[in-house]
């Protein structure tokens, strides 16, 4: 932080980095961050709630897989600015526009990853569970879902990180969280505001990614043991190759 220098303050000099800005506008920054987090969290959660049944439908009925995957992919090609613009007549200017748009984007990634995870469950495992008397629901929640969790969380991480970044575009309708600050900073040529909001945005994305990664490690202790063993084997193999 280069603030606190003698002479005119960094706000008057319009520096990129400004401690004075952080101090005087902390409330504004906090509000924007809270809005950003709220929009992102709600969007990803709704996306997950919709994507899960869609993935189940796509897996259960082969004829449904094409339309479901195709539709979510087509939605993904619609540019975000256009998406928000297309949704405004439906919802008016509100946070619902931004949330709906972001949910539609997250569906592409989430449906694909959940489906890939469920399809990767080995048939023997399913067979064994059926032999032990597991019904379809119990099999899904106690056998298939835990095994599909790594793929699911991988999708969730991608969806969350890109949602955090895309929330900024919501500033066209005034609900962009930190994007609002970026937009107002651009209008006022206020460098510190733009840079601070941008950096906060990237930090939020990285933080969310780390949190989800930690969550996955907590939920799937067995993969940790396995990857550890695999890494050890690989290291051993490399050492053997170096010797040979």
């Amino acid at each position, binding site marked *: 932080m280069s603030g606190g220098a003698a002479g005119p303050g960094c706000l008057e000099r319009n520096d990129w980095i400004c401690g004075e800005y952080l101090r005087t506008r902390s409330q504004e920054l906090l509000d924007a961050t809270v809005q950003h987090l709220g929009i992102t969290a709600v969007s990803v959660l709704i996306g997950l709630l919709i994507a899960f049944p869609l993935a189940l439908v796509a897996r259960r009925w082969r004829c449904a897989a094409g339309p479901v995957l195709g539709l979510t992919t087509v939605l993904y*090609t*619609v540019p*975000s*600015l256009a998406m928000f*613009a297309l949704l405004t007549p439906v919802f008016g200017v509100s946070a619902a526009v931004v949330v709906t748009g972001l949910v539609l984007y997250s569906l592409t*990634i989430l449906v694909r990853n959940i489906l890939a995870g469920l399809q990767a469950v080995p048939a023997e495992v399913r067979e064994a569970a059926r032999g032990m008397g597991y019904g379809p629901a119990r099999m899904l929640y106690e056998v298939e879902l835990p095994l599909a969790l790594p793929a699911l969380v991988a*999708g969730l991480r991608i969806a969350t990180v890109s949602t955090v970044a895309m929330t*900024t575009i919501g500033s066209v309708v005034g609900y962009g969280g930190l994007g609002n600050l970026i937009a107002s*900073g651009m209008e006022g040529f206020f460098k510190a505001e733009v*840079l601070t909001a941008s950096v906060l945005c990237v930090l939020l994305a990285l933080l969310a990614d780390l949190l989800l990664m930690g969550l996955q490690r907590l939920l799937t202790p067995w993969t940790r043991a396995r990857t550890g063993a695999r890494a050890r084997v690989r290291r051993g193999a490399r050492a053997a190759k170096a010797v040979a």
Partner: protein
Amino acid sequence: MGAIAGAWQWLTTAANWAGEKGVWHRLAEHVWLSALCLALSCLIALPVALWLGHLGKGGALAVNLANVGRAIPTFAVLVLLTLSPLGTHGDWPTIIALVLFAVPPLLTNAYLGMREADRDVVEAARGMGMSGPQVLLRVEIPLAYPLIMTGLRSATVQVVATATLAALAGGGGLGRIITAGFGNYDTAQVVAGALLVAVLALTVEGVLVLAERFLDPMRGRRRATRTGSRGASDTSRGAGPGASRAAPASATAP
């Protein structure tokens, strides 16, 4: 559905298509900007990715680049570049931002494609006495073609979509029609602009899917091998356009 009717009326009014701020001019700006940025990105990303893939090095770079690229908001980069000294140089902030965002998907997919090329085939080609460049041009690139094209497609769609955002930072392109509509509280114009952009993005995606199919160096041969190795690799499962967009990402998860 009054908005759709209004948008239709806006789109069928000849005056909206003509002149400096008309649809034709904005469309030309959009396409020109996208094509320029895409060409620049390919020139930067593809040689690097193909070379790294050929050598088998730099995997961590390619994967991390893609992940970091996703975390950075395009809008923020556009505005930052516009406010920087570069901002006075016309379209350069937009071009640089677009290139920055097109390079990661191109690089990652091309690299993964090169790495996923069947090692046995590559070894066999070497055993037949092919030189390094020969292996690269005649074996690895044809095998990596589907993933290279997937990367090209997601980069293209991303560039077309992001070029819309340039309007938020004061640039040209079709996004201007939407932002101008927002500025005048003219919902019909906003929806018309959104429709134009969405149609352009979908058209570009469709054209690329067709181009991908017709330019495949292994056209005809690939189908036979694919049915043989179904389920072996997640990325080659052809489930419609953009099928493997999520696949490389799930492959990159540590």
